[in-house]
């Protein structure tokens, strides 16, 4: 498709100083934020809690390094990520059709409305426990809890997106004799996409927490399982190291995968506000 060079060309057209300045400001913010966090942590560890209750960052850092080096990291991350992905896939698989029904028919909207509100306001831990009780310790528990937690967000946002479709663009398409399938592809899907994406990002932030919780309660592998394992060994550095590794991983996914994807998909919208 010709769209990739287009995006590049237009980005090149912007004054470079602005882009550079924004990037520098972003990096400076990140450094100050992380630096400040580590400083407060070090101070708390040294002055208030003591190194045994709250080990300093350096100690956690070396444990983290050990986890990565020994291969433990890969061993436990892979199942966690897979469960997250499957659960999320499930949420999209159900959330999209439900959202479509809600967005296109008043009857279905009424039917699903309260259900999605209820499903969205139940605390994550309930899903975690429920999924475990019903589906047991096997792999299905975490997947299902992720799916259940994310689905309402996806559905509501898709429905919302369909509400926002510019009626006049559909009229234009009709006037030019476009077919239904073409209108869906060229008008409806692009209108819904930003909303669906917002729903995905929002529920992603929730989903991984619930998934961890499910793994803590009952699983024989995964990051959550390791966190509990370290806890039972009274190893605070080990526990914190796993938590931190996971948090860093999620931030990287958020920043470099989801945010980049969003920038690319919606570049037509970002163009006019540099």
């Amino acid at each position, binding site marked *: 498709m*010709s*769209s990739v*060079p*287009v995006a590049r*060309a*237009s980005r090149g057209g912007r004054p470079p100083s602005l882009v550079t300045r924004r990037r520098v400001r972003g990096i400076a913010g990140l450094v100050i934020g992380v630096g400040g966090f580590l400083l407060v942590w070090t101070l708390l560890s040294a002055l208030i809690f003591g190194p045994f209750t709250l080990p300093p960052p350096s100690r956690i850092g070396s444990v983290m390094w050990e986890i990565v080096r020994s291969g433990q990291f890969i061993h436990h991350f892979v199942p966690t990520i897979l469960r997250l992905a499957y659960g999320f896939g499930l949420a999209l698989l159900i959330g999209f059709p439900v959202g479509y029904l809600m967005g296109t028919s008043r009857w279905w909207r009424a039917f699903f409305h309260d259900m999605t509100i209820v499903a969205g306001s139940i605390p994550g831990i309930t899903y975690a426990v429920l999924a475990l009780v019903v589906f047991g310790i096997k792999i299905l528990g975490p997947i299902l809890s992720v799916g259940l937690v994310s689905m309402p967000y996806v559905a509501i946002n898709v429905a919302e997106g369909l509400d926002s479709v510019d009626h*006049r*663009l559909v*009229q*234009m*398409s*009709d*006037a*030019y*004799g*476009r077919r239904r399938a*073409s209108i869906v592809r*060229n*008008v409806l899907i*692009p209108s819904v996409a930003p909303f669906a994406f917002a729903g995905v990002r929002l529920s992603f932030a929730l989903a991984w927490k619930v998934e961890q919780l499910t793994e803590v309660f009952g699983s024989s592998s995964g990051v959550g399982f390791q966190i509990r394992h370290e806890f039972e060994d009274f190893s605070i550095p080990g526990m914190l190291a796993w938590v931190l590794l996971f948090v860093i991983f999620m931030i990287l996914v958020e920043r470099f995968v989801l945010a980049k994807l969003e920038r690319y998909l*919606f*570049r*037509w*919208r970002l*163009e*006019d506000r540099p």
Partner: protein
Amino acid sequence: MATLRVEHLNKTFPAIERGSDATTAIDDLSFEIGGHVFVSVVGPSGCGKSTLLNIVSGIETATHGSVSVSEDGSPARLGYVFQEPRLLPWRTVMQNMLYVLEGEDVPDRARDYLRMVGLDDAGGKFPAQLSGGMQQRVGIARAFAVEPDLLLMDEPFSHLDAITARSLREQLQGIWTEAKKTVLFVTHDIAEAVQLSNRVLILAPGGRLFADLPIELPYPRKASDTEVAMAQAELLRRFEEMQEETDAARATDVAS
């Protein structure tokens, strides 16, 4: 070229709230146009001009009466320039053109018509990167590119600056003379109607046909031509007549 036949057309929008009245946008409107003509519809804001085009294009349905568009018995192809550009914001200018086009050498055709409106370089841009006037010109290029039998235009120049509008008006005369299209052109600018069209329909508030006037002047016409200015004065006089009549009708309405 196509034949458009409008017979006893009525369009009433139902009241949305209880207690408010239904709106009659068009009331018993009949006319017929066909062949190589440029027909303008003028009238004050809210007199049903856009509604008329929407019914002709099939976007909206008539409450009563009928509208038929035919091209030698077969269904006619329509082009529609809307009051706003109505481009897909997530598609580039070129993709917007291709969206409505079908058949062979489509990219070439799209490029030709973009060149016609002076936007040969804009094909790779997104609508948000263009000025309002440029977006409107893409809308015009799109309507011409489908090579329609009947071209509907709804105040296509009203959002443009005077200089761009003037040059596009001159271009439009050239294209219309050459491409032999049937054009139904909506405007509230009397000078524009006189300069472009060989027939003017004046609509009164409530969507009634008030007058149907021919303008027999040779093309190309300039806004500054003496004959054009005289025809304008004549049309303006009829327009004022219409306004006086509606004001009088309103006064008796209030009195009774």
